[in-house]
């Protein structure tokens, strides 16, 4: 290790640090993102196709923060909500049905344009892939 011979005297004429325009800390360029509780993905809030993104586009998990109406932030549960199924509106738009893992509450949210298509299709096909009820229903028809 090199010996500092003039450690005291050099502090005064030191050049100040340069201004940094990239802010990684709180309030920086990712202040409005949320981090997915399931896969830890940093998700920006502006989503293509919807103004109310509430679930991770990668794993479709969400967080239980709303009480009755979406956006009221009235719930103190903060449990993880997992995608339970997909429902189609009369106009054909898909909604993800979420269920809270800690209190069992259900909620519905429109899908966004960048949601994982493979995860969505797996969710839709889940009732049809299990062998029992779907096969019996199709045979009974």
């Amino acid at each position: 290790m090199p010996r500092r011979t003039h450690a005291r005297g050099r502090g005064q004429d030191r050049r100040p640090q340069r201004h940094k325009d990239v802010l990684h800390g709180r309030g920086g360029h990712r202040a409005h993102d949320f981090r997915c509780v399931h896969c830890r993905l940093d998700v920006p809030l502006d989503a293509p196709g919807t103004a109310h993104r509430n679930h991770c586009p990668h794993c479709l998990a969400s967080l239980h923060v709303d009480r009755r109406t979406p956006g009221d932030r009235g719930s103190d549960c903060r449990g993880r909500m997992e995608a339970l199924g997909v429902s189609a509106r009369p106009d054909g738009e898909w909604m993800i049905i979420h269920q809270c893992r800690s209190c069992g509450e259900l909620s519905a949210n429109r899908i966004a344009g960048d949601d994982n298509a493979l995860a969505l299709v797996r969710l839709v096909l889940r009732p049809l892939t299990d062998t029992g009820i779907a096969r019996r229903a199709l045979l009974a028809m």
Partner: protein
Amino acid sequence: MSDNTTHNILQIDTFACAWCGLTVSAVAADGTRRNHCPSCLHSRHVLDHVEGGPSRCHGRMSPIAIAVLRTGDWMVVHRCVRCDELTSNPVCADDNQLILMRMAVRPLAQPPFPLEAFGTL
């Protein structure tokens, strides 16, 4: 009218469906308690799931989706047409299979993205 329906459940164990008017016995053939019509799968909003206890809404609840439990059992997800609350109930053995299957494949009829790419996966 809604008070009439609850009275009927308590006294003679039948209720009239809010959508198709079918008179349904409140106990299914295997002894489990029924809460939706086996013919059209519609239900009535009598339980408040956010705060617990009975609900004063009494709106009609229409089936919107099928959910699958880890055990492989199907649940019907209902949505109240008056206050938009969601509930999930297990399917009964004598529920209308045509409506169940129609709800399960309904999203695939109008996919938001082309499904052809999944054929190569």
